[in-house]
């Protein structure tokens, strides 16, 4: 098993609302030989503030990069928004010397400086590049052959392509491959790469929930037993809001929404309790019954 070491960057949404994701990701990564070092005094990646002030976003992202450079370690994030922002700003500052100087001017008073020596990666990329799909397959002790699930990548793990670039936004394969490495079948469905709507929450809940509803109905159409996410915001959109959407549109979905490390964790032999299944809003009872039966 490869041994790689990363600073873990939690961002805001995960500690705020999605601890099941953090918990299951830490357990799975540890089992797969990825060592996580806690990141000191980091701050918001900057993405939420890009709409109001690009400069603020650049400074906040640069602070995190500078803090990681002091530790001499690459960053691993669980949130595609954080990964995308840190990747993008890292690339921009490496290429634009004048901008780097301007941003470093802001950081100087706190004794920080971006030099351009580290990288930021999302969990998915670490699993693909560092751990490798073959090693994941080798680590599987309970293949999930009894499960048929659908995957949802979300936007920021793929777009804008110029800055992310490890998968094709029009036909992404990484998450599918990783889902199938657990032994589960990963189903195709309509509009797989569509946005979940989360960024529009608070500006127009109506538009946001309609987007999420479309996705849930397409996933239901192919009879997926669960939807697999890798983004805290997408997860909140589907899991936390599923009941709200059902009520609003008078439809029943009953689709459990799992964080990818929860699915992988089951295949690696961890229990649903260890993987914080009880933190999920939509009941996973039926799914787990299927799993227990298949595992016998």
């Amino acid at each position, binding site marked *: 098993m490869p041994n790689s070491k990363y600073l873990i960057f939690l961002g805001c949404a995960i*500690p705020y609302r999605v*601890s099941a994701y953090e918990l299951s990701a830490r357990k799975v990564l540890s089992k797969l030989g990825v060592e996580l070092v806690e990141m000191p005094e980091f701050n918001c990646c900057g993405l939420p503030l890009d709409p109001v*002030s690009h400069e603020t976003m650049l400074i906040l992202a640069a602070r995190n990069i500078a803090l990681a450079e002091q530790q001499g370690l690459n960053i691993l994030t669980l949130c595609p928004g954080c990964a995308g922002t840190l990747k993008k700003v890292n690339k921009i500052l490496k290429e634009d010397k004048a901008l780097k100087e301007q941003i470093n001017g802001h950081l100087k008073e706190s004794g920080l400086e971006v030099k351009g020596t580290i990288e930021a990666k999302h969990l998915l990329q670490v699993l693909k590049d560092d751990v490798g799909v073959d090693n994941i397959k080798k680590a599987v002790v309970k293949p999930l052959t009894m499960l048929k699930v659908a995957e949802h990548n979300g*936007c920021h793990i793929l777009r*804008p*392509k110029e800055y992310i670039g490890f998968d094709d936004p029009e036909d992404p394969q990484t998450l599918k491959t990783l889902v199938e490495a657990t032994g589960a079948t990963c189903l195709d469905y309509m509009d797989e790469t569509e*946005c979940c*709507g989360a960024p529009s929450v608070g*500006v127009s809940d109506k538009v946001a929930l309609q987007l999420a509803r479309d996705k849930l109905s397409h996933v239901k159409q192919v009879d997926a037993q669960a939807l697999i996410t890798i983004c805290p915001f997408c997860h909140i959109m589907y899991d936390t809001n599923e009941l709200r959407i059902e009520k609003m549109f008078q439809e029943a979905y009953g689709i459990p929404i799992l964080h990818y490390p929860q699915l992988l964790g089951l295949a690696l032999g961890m229990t649903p309790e260890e993987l914080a299944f009880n933190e999920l809003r939509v009941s996973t009872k039926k799914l787990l019954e299927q799993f227990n039966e298949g595992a016998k």
Partner: protein
Amino acid sequence: MAENASTIKDTTKDPIKASELDPKFKYKIMKMHGGEKLLKCFQCGTCTSDCPVARYSDSYRPRTLLHMARLGLKDRVLKSDTLWLCAACFTCTDRCPQGVEVASVIRVLRNLAAEEGIVPQVFKDQCASVLESGYAYKIPDLRLRKREPLGLPPLPKGDPESIKKSLKGVSFMKHVENKGESDAKQ
């Protein structure tokens, strides 16, 4: 704000007066990071036809916003109730045949609106929270206390003083600082 976008008077349909046009507006946008390629837009409509938000909004149209910006309809575009609906999914950016980086131009327009104080409350709250704690959301104490029993390490503490120092001189901050004070009184 744009929650009721469809019920608010749609000013885009009012006749345009020559006096409304600011011929320099497009150059201002093009000087900003992300807005450089505005003039490459040839109005093909790929952005709007592929936009997930446009599908559910009666009035949010990226192509229209870009055209208004090019014409110099500064007030209309910055005060547009739909400007803040963009989900920043970057589909328009990736598919634009002209490489305009549509989502970035829309972000530039939002930044300019914010400079004039036109900002949905949700963004002011997030910024105030970053200044206070380092995080965009105030993480509830209950969540922090729950980490240990769950077996999670304590959450790293932000360094608000250092963040404030770094953001000194950023013009958007003036809108947030006022908000921060009113928040503290509650």
